């Protein structure tokens, strides 16, 4: 997939590369957080504190020792932001990968067999899809309890219909391709047709959805935490830190909300660049392939 990105320096190609770079950088940050973070994520680092700010506890503006300042508990924002990458990526990965693992086979099966089974599954998935994802996730999260894994599951619920729809629609169109009928005329069994002839040709549309839903999953997870229904303190998490910081915003402590938000934006923008770029690169390929 990537060699074709090199061929043309189009906007799509550039966007894909930027997006991929950002994603890789964040994975590195998450993995290396224990090494690169200057302070632990939890607990005050108050030895450097200037006189405590009466309005927001132990918070301090960005300085040489605390690049992004400290929060109301005196925790280093930069370190928490780095550690927070772990939480976000973990929740996102669980949510999106589980959604793919369920949505893809179900979509493939539903699209291939068609008929009333397909219609029934479609109706259920479409109904769930039409429902505001965050509300559904909030509900599931409230029921399951709060930990990265449970939040991941709650998010999965939103994205299963998405993967299902994309897979099913693509399966429907691939199923009508002559080469699938050719496989049938050769005497191939349904299982072989589904996995040898259809699955791969459906899978090429998935990276786009994968990137876009990953971006959305990060937003949803952050939203849940922001609402107090996701990750709980003291775990470092961007959305959670933002919601804590919000109450001090009117007092001028902008840094505690600005930087976690910025991290979310950079990562989601990266992912959506990757998704959009891939979309622009893959779509013409699909069309050309058919022509």
């Amino acid at each position: 997939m990537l060699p074709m990105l090199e061929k043309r320096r189009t906007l799509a190609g550039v966007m894909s590369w930027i997006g991929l770079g950002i994603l890789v950088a964040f994975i590195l940050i998450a993995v290396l957080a224990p090494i690169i973070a200057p302070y632990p994520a939890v607990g005050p680092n108050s030895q450097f504190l200037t006189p405590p700010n009466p309005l927001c506890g132990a918070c301090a503006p960005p300085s040489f020792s605390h690049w992004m300042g400290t929060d109301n508990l005196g925790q280093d924002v930069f370190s928490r932001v780095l550690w927070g990458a772990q939480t976000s990526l973990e929740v996102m990965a669980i949510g999106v990968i589980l959604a793919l693992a369920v949505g893809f086979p179900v979509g493939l099966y539903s699209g291939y067999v068609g008929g009333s089974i397909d219609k029934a599954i479609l109706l259920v998935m479409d109904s769930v899809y039409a429902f505001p994802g965050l509300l559904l996730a909030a509900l599931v999260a409230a029921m399951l309890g709060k930990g990265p894994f449970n939040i991941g599951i709650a998010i999965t619920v939103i994205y299963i219909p998405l993967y299902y729809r994309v897979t099913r629609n693509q399966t429907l169109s691939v199923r009508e391709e002559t080469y699938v009928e050719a496989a049938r005329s050769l005497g191939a069994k349904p299982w072989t047709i589904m996995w040898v002839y259809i699955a791969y040709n459906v899978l090429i549309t998935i990276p786009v959805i994968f990137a876009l839903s990953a971006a959305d999953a990060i937003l949803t997870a952050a939203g849940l935490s922001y609402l107090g229904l996701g990750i709980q303190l003291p775990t470092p998490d961007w959305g959670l830190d933002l919601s804590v910081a919000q109450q001090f915003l009117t007092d001028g402590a902008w840094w505690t909300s600005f930087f976690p938000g910025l991290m979310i934006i950079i990562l989601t923008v990266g992912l959506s660049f990757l998704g959009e770029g891939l979309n622009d690169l893959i779509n013409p390929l699909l069309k050309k392939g058919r022509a």
Partner: protein
Amino acid sequence: MPRRGSLLAYGLTRLILAFPMLLILLTVVFTVLRIIPGDPIYALYGGRAPLSVIMALRHQLGLDKPYWQQYVTYIVQIFTGNFGVSLGAHYGGQSVIAVIDQKLPATIELSIGSMIVASTIGISVGLISGINRDKVVDVVGRLYGTTIFVIPVFWLGLMLQLLFAVDLRWLPVNSRFDISSSPPATITGLYTIDSLLAGRLDLFIIAIRHLALPCLTLGLVLSGFFAKTVRANLLRTINADYVEAARARGIKERTIMSRYAFKNALIPVITVLGLEFAILFAGAVLTETTFNWDGMGRLLIDSIEVQDYPLIQGTIIVFSFIIVLISILVDILSGVIDPRVRY
């Protein structure tokens, strides 16, 4: 030979088709609330209230009955308009319907305002982008569409608050109305409409000033989706065969753009409108929290926090009804505009 289908028949079909969708949503809500972790009372009160209290509550809500019986009662209650009574700290004892009736107008006002902002900005950006394909304006427009869509709505809200309310002090920080004045008498519950109905322009201005930031926040985030859809569709219609054919007939370029390219590009936008509303409602929950907006989203989160299970259920069900209603409206609207849709 294909003939024109009846719009009325089409509308009725959509209405009937919407019923299973509603039923499925209600079933999903039922499943999540009652089956996944055992039952809501255990999930919400487990270990925090004496067993006798829990058992009594369970009995009161009928949770000790078999699932199928619970399900039937649940469906019957919903369709008879009985949503139960709130159990939580804030609204304990009040009827769920009454509480929702208070909160719904706030969310509707916020949603409509945001939709207006989103469609105005989004469609304009999409059209400008599409006409100037691959020029600088287009690249900027595309980057805007992609970026604005993935900015966390609460973060954008906070930043706008910081800028316009805290620093510049142009607009109120949060809430639906000034504390110093009393809102207009409730007719529709929408402060803007009510103040106009009461003939109070001053109150209307207060309401609009309070609406401005939340609607801008939510509208901006949502405009990305509009911009992307409109641009993609415009690129398709601008190069459509019928546009070329119209040009060959010597139709004026302006007419071609408005009657062939723009109009046709906006049709698919209607069909994604349902999806937009789903995103809008999710965003509304966050925006209501950021701006302390006393609406349905806040109600849901508060109910979840105080584990007010009848209120949670009621709120979610009302959202389901609205979603289904919107999907019907969207279908009928696209049927009215696009003659091909009436099958």
